[in-house]
């Protein structure tokens, strides 16, 4: 029984894809490490600046373990990271994993609030613009999304802040959150960053959904359904959508991955205590251990979401589920 299950092509494909994801994550950790260690300009020098004395440089190098060979440092860093020990920050000596824990929670809370709103909206708008393909609803939706894609996240952030917080006084302009807040207060605080993130991903997601469904709409069985005289929404809902699930799920996952990056900038705009602000602050301070840890976490989330997208599209393909 188990051998037949393991022999099933879907299981093999999924296992293969997950293994690929893990290999990629491992390689990404290597890339992040190499990128921050072997580039010209050593970390001690960049922390202390050009005017540092040789003695203080040597002390700092010893303190950071820079005298060890790079391979040893990489292995101890990776093993530590796998055990949840991300090292300590250079600037304040704090434990990185501890400082990151709450911020990661905040970021995921913000990103999932945005996703809960953006995903259904993008799917509905995508369906509407396919239904009215090349008529005015399609053109209006396409125009608005083109505009929102053309504006960088941080500017969208300030435009929303200017209109909603300064002119209309609807929501606070700065998203301060603390532990004793109730869920409702918390949602009120993050309303503006959520609106911005929704606008950022909605355009991409809607365009890609529209393209995926339009692609399916050109197949022969859709023409048959049309010739049978079915109503347009029924054709889209019963005939096009099931076949578009794999590409659409792919679109959603890619955009959630995109959301993770958009969060970095939006958090800085709204001074929200999340991972993005943590990363940007410490890049400016050249606090390499924190940057490495943040980079690793962001890469893991990004690779993970892409992996889920691939696995879902394997599972959604009936040809792979029921092999001949």
């Amino acid at each position, binding site marked *: 029984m188990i051998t037949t299950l393991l022999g099933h092509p879907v299981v093999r494909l999924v296992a293969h894809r997950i293994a690929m994801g893990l290999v*990629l994550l491992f390689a*990404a950790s290597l890339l992040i490490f190499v990128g921050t260690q072997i580039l010209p300009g050593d970390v001690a020098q960049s922390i202390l600046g050009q005017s540092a004395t040789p003695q203080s440089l040597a002390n700092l190098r010893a303190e950071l373990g820079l005298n060890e060979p790079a391979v040893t440092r990489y292995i101890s860093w990776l093993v530590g990271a796998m055990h949840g020990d991300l090292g300590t920050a250079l600037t304040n000596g704090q434990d990185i994993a501890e400082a990151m824990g709450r911020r990661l929670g905040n970021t995921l809370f913000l990103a999932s609030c945005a996703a809960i709103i953006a995903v259904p909206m993008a799917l509905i708008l995508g369906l509407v613009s396919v239904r009215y393909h090349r008529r005015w609803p399609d053109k209006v939706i396409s125009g608005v999304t083109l505009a929102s894609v053309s504006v960088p996240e941080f*500017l969208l952030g300030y435009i929303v802040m*200017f209109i909603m917080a300064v002119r209309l006084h609807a929501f606070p302009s700065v998203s301060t959150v603390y532990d004793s807040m109730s869920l409702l207060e918390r949602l009120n605080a993050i309303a503006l960053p959520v609106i911005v993130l929704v606008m950022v991903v909605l355009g991409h997601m809607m365009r890609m959904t529209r393209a995926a469904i339009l692609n399916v709409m050109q197949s022969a069985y859709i023409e048959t359904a049309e010739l049978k005289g079915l109503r347009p929404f029924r054709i889209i809902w019963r005939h096009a959508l099931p076949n578009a699930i794999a590409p659409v799920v792919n679109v959603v996952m890619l955009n959630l991955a995109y959301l993770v*990056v958009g969060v*970095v900038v939006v958090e800085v705009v709204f001074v929200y205590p999340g991972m993005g602000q943590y990363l940007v602050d410490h890049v*400016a301070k*050249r606090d390499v251990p924190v940057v490495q840890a943040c*980079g690793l976490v962001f890469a893991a989330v990004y690779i993970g979401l892409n992996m889920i997208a691939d696995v879902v599209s394997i599972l959604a393909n009936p040809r792979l589920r029921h092999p001949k």
Partner: protein
Amino acid sequence: MSRIPLSALIGMVVTAAYFLAAIFADVISPYGYADVVGNVWDPVSAEHWLGTDSIGRDLLSRMIYGGQITIFVAAAATVLAFATGAFFGFLAAVSGGWVDQVLSRLVDLLMSIPALILALVILSVLPVSVPVLIGVMGLIESTRVFRLSRAVAVDVAVMDYVEAARLRGEGTIWVIFREILPNALSPLVAEAGLRFIFMVLFISTLSFLGLGVQPPLADWGGIVKENKEGIVYGIPAALIPAVAIATLAISVNLVADWVLTRTSSLKGGRG
């Protein structure tokens, strides 16, 4: 040659206006970019068409010089991305075998980390200067160009005339530049527009985060950063670069769209 559609025409005019303003910044800007000529955040007036910024510099002049930096950095990074990305993409497609495998897997790896995160990680250890920014942005972006040019070149590389060139005994470099490049040019030109816009957004974002162009110089992203405190008091100075970036992005998009449909209809209109 068909008529140019109105949307593409508008796109071209606006794009050309921004580029001309960038090139002739010294001639057209009313004040120097670092001269303090008024009070903090003066409103729009006859002397200062866009008002003044957070320390009383003329905002229109800042915007013109900022546009010069933004467009220069973005254009240089785009050129670098295409020079490296397209060369290695063609090389991978022409060579095949292990060269293709190594290059493609390396690009997969670089693309597995989001571009902004990778840029931040690298910039945390490098001195932040304009050449470094162009290099980091261009090389990260070249992975996207690599994907496209490899895909295009794989189709071209199986053509009979490439086979003929190989049988004549031409080398890889000759095949890349004389056979593949001319036949892969049109999709790459359309892509260049989109990549350029992506670079404009990228440098603006980095500067806004304080990790791009450093003061006293400022690109459009930097101008947002300088004036962002004004937003809370209802001063819209920080929103002016938004208009500039968005209109530039949309107009380049319109031109690129037109180039893309025109070249695909030349190929028999299958697109």
